[in-house]
């Protein structure tokens, strides 16, 4: 779960990191009023998209009138598809240098890493490797000040800023652990005449840990359909084809999509019903898939934890409660496979043991070649 900039900043401020004076607004009038209080300001669209600056989501205003005009134009516009509903209006900083500092999980090192660069303000992916410092963090001890100081020195920061940088990095790590973050980032961490200020901030929280992060706000970053399926505990991404796909496991779902493409089909979605999917949520997920009006449906189940008979019953249940005339192809192998196949065939549904045959069949059906 990504938090909006203003939320991330609020949290970092509570952890003792300095942020610019500012306020979130959702009307041009408020923007003007904040600007009249703060002087020259920056208006930042609160959207979850990256590269917001290039898309016009970050603009300056020197007067309340200008702030109002800018806000008017920004509110209701879209940035990379995201509607701008809120603007963070902040006092414009006098920035001498922009640093990057982030804490993120490195899956290959199996550890959190501190990332830092003297070239902040841009997408960190664009910073050349040689200018990005990485330091692995031992979760048993956390990020210690000496390590952060060493990084600050290597960034070439002026000596008097080294303790402040170390302090910020350690506090960021504190927030990273406390909020089950995947990522905490200040980009840029601005060097100003008054010291270091988090001019922009991100905090992405591990979805799997939300159950114990009750104090955090909830932010949704998906289409209504995606949300609906996610609420069923499944993993869903919308695509633009016409063959609805449902499979069990991220790997086999991706492979199914790859195979369909290879066979000339156009998948309508990525839907992983997961290893432990029970009949009821699967039935609901199928119902959701059908809402998008695909031309055919492929269910590809290689049973592990998932039992094939559950899958078969789910298919029958959906058809029973909400009859559909769309062609359905089921591929079924694994635990309780015989029982699953029997149930489907008895109900007259096309079922295969081979993925190749099933994929070929559904592509044919979607083309109306029946």
């Amino acid at each position: 779960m990504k938090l909006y900039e203003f939320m991330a900043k609020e949290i970092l401020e509570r952890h003792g990191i300095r942020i610019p004076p500012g306020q979130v607004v959702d009307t041009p009038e408020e923007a003007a009023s904040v600007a009249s209080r703060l002087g020259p300001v920056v208006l930042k669209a609160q959207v979850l998209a990256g590269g917001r600056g290039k898309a016009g989501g970050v603009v300056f205003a020197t007067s309340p009138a200008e702030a109002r005009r800018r806000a008017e134009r920004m509110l209701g516009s879209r940035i990379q598809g995201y509607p701008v509903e809120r603007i963070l209006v902040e006092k414009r900083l006098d920035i001498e240098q922009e640093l990057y500092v982030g804490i993120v999980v490195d899956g290959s090192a199996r550890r959190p890493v501190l990332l830092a660069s003297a070239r902040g303000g841009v997408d960190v992916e664009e910073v050349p490797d040689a200018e990005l410092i990485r330091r692995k963090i031992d979760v048993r001890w956390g990020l210690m000040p000496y390590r952060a100081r060493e990084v600050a020195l290597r960034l070439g920061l002026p000596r008097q800023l080294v303790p402040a940088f170390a302090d910020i990095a350690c506090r960021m790590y504190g927030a990273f652990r406390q909020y089950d973050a995947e990522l905490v980032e200040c980009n840029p961490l601005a060097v100003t005449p008054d010291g270091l200020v988090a001019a922009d901030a991100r905090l992405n929280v591990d979805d799997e840990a939300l159950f114990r992060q009750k104090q955090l706000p909830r932010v949704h970053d998906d289409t209504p359909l995606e949300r609906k399926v996610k609420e069923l505990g499944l993993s869903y991404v919308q695509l633009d084809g016409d063959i609805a796909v449902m499979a069990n496991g991220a790997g086999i779902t991706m492979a199914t999509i790859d195979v369909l493409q290879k066979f000339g089909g156009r998948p309508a979605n990525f839907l992983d019903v997961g290893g432990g999917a029970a009949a009821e949520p699967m039935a609901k997920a199928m119902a959701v898939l059908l809402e998008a009006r695909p031309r055919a449906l492929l269910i590809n189940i290689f049973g592990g934890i998932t039992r094939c008979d559950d899958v078969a019953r789910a298919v029958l249940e959906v058809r029973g409660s909400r009859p559909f005339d769309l062609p359905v192809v089921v591929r079924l192998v694994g635990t309780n496979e015989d029982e699953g196949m029997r149930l489907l065939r008895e109900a007259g549904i096309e079922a295969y043991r081979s993925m190749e045959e099933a994929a070929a069949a559904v592509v044919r059906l979607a083309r109306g070649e029946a």
Partner: protein
Amino acid sequence: MAILIDEKVKLVIQGITGRQGSFHCRQMLEYGTRVVAGVSPGKGGHEVCGVPVYDTVEEAVATRGANASCVFVPAPFAKDAVFEALDAGIKLVVVITEHIPLHDALDIVAFAQERGATVVGPNTFGVISPGRCKIGIMPNRIYCPGPVGVAARSGTLSYEVVASLSLAGLGQSTVVGVGGDRVTGLGFVQLLKQFERDEHTRVIVLVGEIGGTAEEEAAEYIKSLSKPVVAYLAGRNAPPGKRMGHAGAIIERGKGSFASKVRALRSAGVAVAELPWEVPALVQRALTA
């Protein structure tokens, strides 16, 4: 021979009284795994499929000599369960549980390293040395013994590949799921190392997917390997960005894409299959080369 597990395993199942735990307890028993104990706090004294249940792993180790654990405990409590197993001296813990918080996985991996233990997963289908021992949730009947070592990120996709291997008469030494999560205990590189040393394994199959850099690191390591490697990767047409997001991209820095992985593996001499069912032919070719 095989890697990680064989007939010497005495398994304790943590979370044995749950729906999945008890179902797969029976499956593992049927496969021939010596399931010597179950653990379920508050349920000590019960039995599941004839297996005695204890309140603590310590008891299971002391009373039944358990030396490996399979964890089905729900995600919020899984870290505690793995720590308990490791603290009780168990050196192989297979964590089936999915949806374990990322920071818990970090802790699990660090604690396992500290104890010199191996954690497979989390979010793994498990480990199987066909004909000898199975710890996990994979279907029993698709495996057969043989010279192919398989390491996979995704469960069902590995079943797909393994089933096609078995159908082609190509048995497996050991099949291991590294787990689908961002942070897992055992990785491709450690498995390649073990397969290289295992005399029974003659060819290695990697079943990978987009995201992360595990395949690229494996490719780097494969350059020093004497045994042939075949790979299949899922995700050529996966929607970009959605899966890993920004946090992953920062670390990956250009790696992690389908193209990057295929390039890395091919340049390390790996035969990469285009479709899952093409794997057996490539393995056959490697075996007879």
